[in-house]
């Protein structure tokens, strides 16, 4: 091998290896910085207190953060999943071929809007519009615990519900683009076969497109979930953190997710010990998103067959 070739090959391979190591480094460094704080922690890491102001007496647990993170992401997924499926079907099966590409581009534009803008828009413009909707859900379905009065009940703007709706909008382009890609690969022979048997367009979709693309759609939704779990600034703008009250299992609760908690307490990062508590929370978030992304990629990878 010529020296130029050897150098270039080693350089590119090194870059590849570096990326692989990087993931390990992220986990390692977060762990190393979390350990001192975890050792100094006076309460269980799985409780729901969070008092890190006094670095001599650290008291922090992740129960509440985990619950709110999962709740917000689930609300977002419940809204985003059917809509994304609809858009993907629209773009691949319904839209005139000439318009499908520009339409897809329009949806992708949503991904280019910075999340801080979604946060501001959600709080100042969307939340007032959602308020009567939330009130109506609360009035009519309030007997179901998840729609009951939350821990910030009278002030139902900065709730998990509002946050979930905004998050759903942010997830649309992610879930849609991947689902669309899978749907586009439905074998034409199958579609034509169904059509030849006299199936209506919906029946074609139900019998060929959906079964073929199901795994890809689920994988795409899990990718969306991974994104939702880690969304930071939009949620820290929208969610209101009630004083002295914890998560109540209602969508009209306030609270903080892992990411929004870390982001809204950036002032405490001047103290390395207090920062350790947040790094511990960040480590849990990292592991959570790692597992979700890992699962999503495995599903999509299987479907792509490579």
């Amino acid at each position, binding site marked *: 091998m010529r020296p130029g070739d050897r150098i270039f090959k080693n350089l590119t391979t090194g*870059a590849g290896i570096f990326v692989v190591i990087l993931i390990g480094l992220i986990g390692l*460094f977060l762990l190393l910085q979390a350990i001192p704080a975890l050792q100094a922690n006076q309460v269980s890491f799985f409780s729901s207190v969070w008092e890190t102001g006094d670095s001599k007496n650290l008291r922090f647990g992740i129960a509440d953060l985990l619950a709110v993170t999962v709740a917000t992401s689930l609300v977002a997924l419940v809204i985003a999943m059917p809509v994304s499926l609809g858009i993907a079907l629209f773009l691949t099966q319904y839209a005139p071929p000439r318009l499908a590409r520009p339409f897809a581009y329009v949806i992708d534009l949503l991904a280019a809007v910075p999340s801080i803008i979604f946060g501001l828009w959600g709080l100042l413009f969307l939340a007032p519009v959602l308020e009567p909707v939330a009130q109506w859900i609360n009035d009519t379905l309030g007997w179901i615990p998840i729609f009951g009065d939350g821990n910030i009940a009278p002030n139902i703007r900065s709730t998990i519900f509002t946050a979930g709706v905004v998050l759903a909008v942010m997830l649309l382009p992610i879930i849609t683009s991947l689902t669309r890609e899978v749907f586009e690969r439905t074998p034409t022979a199958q579609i034509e076969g169904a059509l030849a048997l006299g199936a209506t367009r*919906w029946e074609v979709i139900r019998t060929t497109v959906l079964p073929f693309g199901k795994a890809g759609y689920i994988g795409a939704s899990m990718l969306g979930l991974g994104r939702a779990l880690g969304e930071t600034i939009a949620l820290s703008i929208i969610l209101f953190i009630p004083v002295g009250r914890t998560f109540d299992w209602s969508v009209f609760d306030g609270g903080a997710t892992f990411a929004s908690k870390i982001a809204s307490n950036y002032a405490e990062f001047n103290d390395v010990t207090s920062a350790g508590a947040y*790094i511990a929370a960040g480590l849990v978030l990292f592991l959570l998103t790692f597992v979700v992304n890992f699962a999503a990629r495995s599903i999509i990878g299987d479907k792509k067959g490579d």
Partner: protein
Amino acid sequence: MTATIPDADRPAVTPAFQQVSLARKTKNGVATVLVWLAFLIAVIPLVWVLWTVVESGITRIPYTNWWTEDFSLVLSDEVGGGVLHAIVGTLLQGLVCAIIAVPLGLLVAIYLVEYGRRTRLAKVTTFMVDILSGVPSIVAALFIYALWVTTLGLPRNGFSVSLALVLLMVPVVVRSSEEMLRIVPDDLREASYALGVPKWKTIVKIVLPTALSGIITGIMMALARVMGETAPLLVLVGYSSFVHWDMFQGEMASLPLLINNERATNSMTEGSVGFERIWGAALTLVLIIALINLAATLIGRLVAPKKK
């Protein structure tokens, strides 16, 4: 008897060209309406968000001092000043991030396409790039904090923000470049080898230029994406209302950080100074992102291989 025949092999019981029953027609109609509705539902927030940004942000943007001054000499509730300091910070942090992320991402993509084809390491790398693209921005920020501030004992500054952005930009660059390199026809490579050109020179002189337009487009889009990130800024640098050029020392503004800072310190009611600043900065950010995207398309077209 019929039960033993597999479903697929059984002859159609009913003639295929039958009239479509009302139930089937209705279902089909409902599905069509729902699918169109889903698309409209997605377009509403997009139009709404963009309209909000333009309508609320337009107040101060047309004045020259918005683009040429900073907020250092204006009070928080005083009309006047501009966001030059934040524009400088955003562009500077983005640029430094790109200087690190682009070569790194490009090398990884070259490895995956040219050297690693079907090897175990390439598979692992692809997988890790995918995982890296799922790492939340706040986790990237915490990692850089743990590395830069706690372990190395260096101060929080603009450069550490750029490092965190690198983590977010690299996977996007790798993915888009990889895709572009893959569609370069193998004939080109083989023709070059046949002429005795070394592999590395083939890659640098033949493969990369062929894929260049797509690669540049991908890079610029990735850059536009990371410039709107806020989370790393909160953890890794403080806000300053002065124009600040030093990446390695002191506080540094940027548009998302300015928005967040004004949001925390000012009233956000419509028509107030805080409101105008926040949405003015938001519109400025969206304009910059749109400009970069536009430039990406134009440059992509300019350097695209000539077709007959």
